[in-house]
């Protein structure tokens, strides 16, 4: 991934964001951002997934349980899925995940979804910047899902 530098603009809190990026578009987009030396905050921890359709809601919940301050899920634009329809199926899931999490009182900006193509390096940086700012403004994960103690992760 590219050079990363934080723009210091009254930033109070550096969030940790779990970013699930689809292999074919968003991961390549992130790569392009790196190759193009486009700067964005060092807040994301990237997890490459084969397709946004691979995202199990539990990934998002577990990331929050283990203390991530935010989650970013990004896949190919609808219509561009490497597997034809993976992101269409994912889109319905995402809508419901977002809706349910907001419903149970999780701050709206903690869990984020986007479509970023392999050509959109600049946009990827924008998305990360935006998400980081918003999650940063919310401060640390307040624990709607965060398990204070333990959390049975396999290393």
């Amino acid at each position, binding site marked *: 991934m590219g050079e990363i530098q934080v723009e210091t603009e009254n930033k109070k809190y550096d969030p940790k964001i779990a970013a699930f990026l689809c292999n074919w578009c968003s991961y390549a987009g992130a790569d392009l951002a790196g190759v193009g030396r486009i700067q964005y905050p060092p807040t994301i921890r990237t997890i490459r997934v084969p397709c946004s359709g691979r995202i199990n809601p539990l990934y998002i919940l577990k990331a929050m349980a*283990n203390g991530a301050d935010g989650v970013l899920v990004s896949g190919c634009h609808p219509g561009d899925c490497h597997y034809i329809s993976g992101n269409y199926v994912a889109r319905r899931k995402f809508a419901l995940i977002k809706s349910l999490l907001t419903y149970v009182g999780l701050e709206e900006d903690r869990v984020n979804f986007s479509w970023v193509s392999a050509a959109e390096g600049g946009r990827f940086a924008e998305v990360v910047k935006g998400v980081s700012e918003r999650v940063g403004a919310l401060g640390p994960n307040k624990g709607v899902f965060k398990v204070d*103690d*333990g*959390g*049975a992760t396999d*290393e």
Partner: protein
Amino acid sequence: MKISKEKFGQALDALIAEYQIIAPVSDANGIAFKGVKSFSEVKQDYLNSKLPPKAFFFPQHEKLMSYKKEGKDVTVKSELKVENTVLFGIRPCDAKGMQLLDMVFKNDQYTDPYYYERREKAVIIGVACQKIAPTCFCSSFGISPAGSEGSDLFLIDLGDSYDVEVITEKGKALAARFEALSELTADEQALVEKVKRAETTSKVDVSTTTSKLDKMFNSPYWDSLQEKCIGCNVCSFSCPTCHCFDISEEVRKNEGTRVRTWDGCMAPLFTLHGSGHNPRDHKKARWRQRMMHKFNYFVHNNGSMSCVGCGRCIKSCPVNMDIRQVIDGANKAELVVE
């Protein structure tokens, strides 16, 4: 001897500095045993708690130890924490249940320090049942709604005061801190006698159950019995004598804790081997285990049935599996001649 409720409350409040006081309180969800700061929070008129008070000795989720890994090294620390505790308002069924748990957590070879150290530092103040629910059937097991077995101190509600009976040395030590004990009046004495004669209206005959179950391992009874069970753990979790647990690890980076959590014999995973083999691979086998354990194995191992007739499982079961009917059915089941 008796003590006025006011004086008793003051005496209990005075214990706060040395003890955590657990007592029945009323919350949105019914009656629960919880820590209280003052006797005034305590619910006086209650049937029994929704969940049994066993959790104060055997919590649903408890740390056994913690560890920290550094490279290839590891340091291990016990997480055993014990507090002096007074459990007030324990019903006779639950007090007896704790006696039964004592036998489990201290067997012929091992003593479980987490349970036992808490148990040893706890004083149980039993209170006789004022009312008897239709699902109560403790009298079936020789427990009375005014039975003092398992309590350290035993109280009978007399309206404005309690009749106090000292059962154990622990209870005696605590009772020594009560002032103003006075004699019962004749009327009160009569009331105490009446309370002590009370029995549950619902009873099952368990006199032959154990010996019958000796011959029932291969009975077709278990086939029909298990059909409607959905295999959840609510009966185990709400049982004052169920004690099965799981041990697992909770990990964060290089540190972690080993915890034990309630488990139940109704879960298929409970006995699943690493190889995939499962000796109790069907609900039928799991129900048989539940019944056998409570009414047969436990009797052979510990000389007593592992059921106190509190009726919680009857009330909590989503499909109305009624253990009284299950016992009755076993009593009546025809034996297969092999």
